[in-house]
């Protein structure tokens, strides 16, 4: 009996540390980014590589932003005779056709307006309509796929095209930055910080690993050869056509590159309901991709032989640690609670070590994010500090200074020596799990009369917990085989207006 209990405790101890896996994996990526210099991505090959580029913009009711987007594109630092804009109007019901007719008239030969009379099937279908037109003649040497509302930095396009001088490169993606600026709110600042970690940092690390997880849907540049090798069409069977394109490109033996210096501003959801809708779509898309490429994961040797690194161990670890975050957090909390009921002291020691690990990861990620994109960090530093949630941040502070706080906890009766259970400590031990439903409640409140309670609840639970909760919802929807709908994220055009 005693041995069985010991075995159970040892298993529980291991599971507790699984709760740190997502953060530790994130740190691994942050440690890799400094090595990008050795990848020689920015070698000066021939001054400027400027292929004839067709810009493909899918548009559904984008009249308020189209003029600014198209004019902005035509004003990029890129030879005018090497840039064309093709807008695919997906049966818009607003003045998009009139706006496009005027733009085509103003820039004859440089702006093309295509219209689908029966739309609403999703972005991939719209893109395919435009791609068919672009690939029909041999003018385009490269195709840039972007969203109607994103704003390119003046130098972003040639920064992307410079990688295409390497014939081994099939596609390039840019650093999408949250673009609300001063018009934003705390949610957009959370997203701004998230994008430093998830794009500027993680994708640099992926450059180092030689495998990129996803070409940003709002800014992806392909060589003509790559698109033709993909059959001249984007995937229409999943909610993640951009990730499928990324995988297919690499499976075909072409490299995908992330250029962190080619920046693009995008408008992101400013309220929780919109963010939830968007992230649910992304999470479901990633689950579909995981299933679709089940023969690729963790097949390191074979994969290298085939000219791609999608099967590498580290890439698989990065991919699955993210997808398994809710499971790992729940297992970790459950083990801590089990130990709390059966062996107080062991539970406290493990809890302490777990959070010291989290603290080191949190510090490294926060400081590196400040270094990677100082400008965005200056805008979102507060959201960065409370990114794990206020409760988790307090736990981190307590963990950082045990000499100060342990006596206080003792005095408050939170660390009883008689083995009795304290509800506050129980909640703290289970916090990694409890924060997820709390974040979900914040999202639910956002759509009701109590919407004012949503932001403080989100601050309490943490933005990371919201994303984990969204992942749980994605698992449920995929399990139920819920209908795949393309819910377009509402855009107001404030990014373009702010420039």
């Amino acid at each position: 009996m005693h041995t069985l209990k010991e075995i159970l405790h040892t298993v529980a101890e291991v599971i507790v540390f699984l709760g740190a896996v997502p953060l530790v994996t994130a740190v691994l990526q942050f440690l890799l980014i400094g090595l990008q210099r050795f990848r020689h991505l920015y070698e000066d090959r021939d001054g400027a590589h400027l292929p004839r580029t067709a810009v493909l913009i899918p548009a559904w009711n984008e009249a308020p932003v189209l003029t600014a987007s198209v004019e902005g594109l035509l004003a990029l630092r890129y030879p005018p005779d090497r840039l064309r804009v093709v807008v695919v109007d997906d049966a818009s019901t607003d003045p998009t056709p009139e706006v496009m007719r005027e733009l085509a008239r103003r820039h004859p030969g440089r702006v093309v307006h295509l219209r689908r009379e029966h739309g609403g099937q999703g972005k991939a279908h719209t893109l395919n309509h435009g791609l068919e037109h672009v690939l029909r003649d041999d003018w385009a040497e490269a195709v840039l796929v972007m969203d109607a509302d994103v704003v390119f930095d003046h130098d972003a396009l040639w920064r992307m095209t410079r990688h295409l001088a390497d014939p081994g490169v099939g596609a390039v993606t840019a650093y999408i930055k949250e673009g609300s600026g001063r018009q934003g709110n705390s949610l957009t600042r959370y997203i701004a910080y998230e994008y430093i970690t998830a794009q500027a940092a993680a994708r640099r690390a992926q450059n180092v690993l030689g495998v990129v997880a996803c070409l940003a849907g709002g800014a992806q540049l392909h060589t003509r050869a790559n698109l033709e090798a993909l059959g001249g069409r984007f995937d229409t069977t999943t909610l993640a056509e951009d990730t499928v394109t990324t995988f297919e490109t690499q499976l075909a033996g072409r490299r995908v590159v992330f250029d962190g210096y080619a920046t693009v501003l995008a408008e992101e959801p400013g309220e929780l309901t919109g963010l939830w809708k968007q992230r649910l779509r992304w999470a479901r898309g990633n689950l579909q991709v995981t299933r679709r490429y089940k023969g690729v994961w963790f097949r390191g040797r074979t994969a290298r032989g085939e000219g791609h690194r999608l099967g590498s161990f580290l890439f698989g670890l990065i991919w699955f640690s993210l997808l398994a975050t809710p499971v790992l957090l729940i297992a970790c909390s459950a083990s801590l609670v089990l130990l709390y009921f059966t062996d107080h002291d062991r539970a406290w020691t493990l809890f302490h070590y777990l959070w010291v690990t989290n603290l080191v990861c949190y510090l490294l990620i926060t400081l590196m994010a400040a270094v990677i994109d100082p400008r965005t960090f200056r805008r979102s530093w507060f959201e960065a500090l409370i990114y794990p949630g206020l409760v988790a941040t307090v736990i981190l502070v307590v963990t950082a200074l045990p000499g100060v706080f342990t006596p206080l906890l003792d005095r408050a009766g939170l660390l009883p020596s008689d083995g009795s259970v304290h509800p506050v400590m129980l909640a703290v031990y289970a916090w990694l799990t409890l924060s997820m439903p709390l974040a979900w409640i914040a999202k639910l409140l956002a759509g009701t009369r109590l919407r004012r309670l949503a932001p403080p609840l989100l601050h309490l639970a943490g933005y990371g917990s919201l994303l984990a909760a969204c992942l749980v919802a994605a698992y449920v929807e995929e399990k139920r085989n819920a209908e795949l709908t393309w819910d377009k994220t509402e855009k107001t055009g404030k990014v373009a207006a702010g420039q």
Partner: protein
Amino acid sequence: MTNDDTGGAPRPPGPARPAPGDRTPEALARRARDLTREDRRADRRLLWWELLVLLIIAGLLVARWHWLL
């Protein structure tokens, strides 16, 4: 509508930038050369920043171990 926010890692003051309207191949090639050099430098600097961050965290952990536990 477009912006000059290059984001990314901190970088030294860049070379004089031509007006956005200057899109002749020569001007673009010159600019591409200059900015690519800047990007390379920023990439190199990232490694040193990373090492500095690691040093700071190691220092904090040592301090915590010795004085704050």
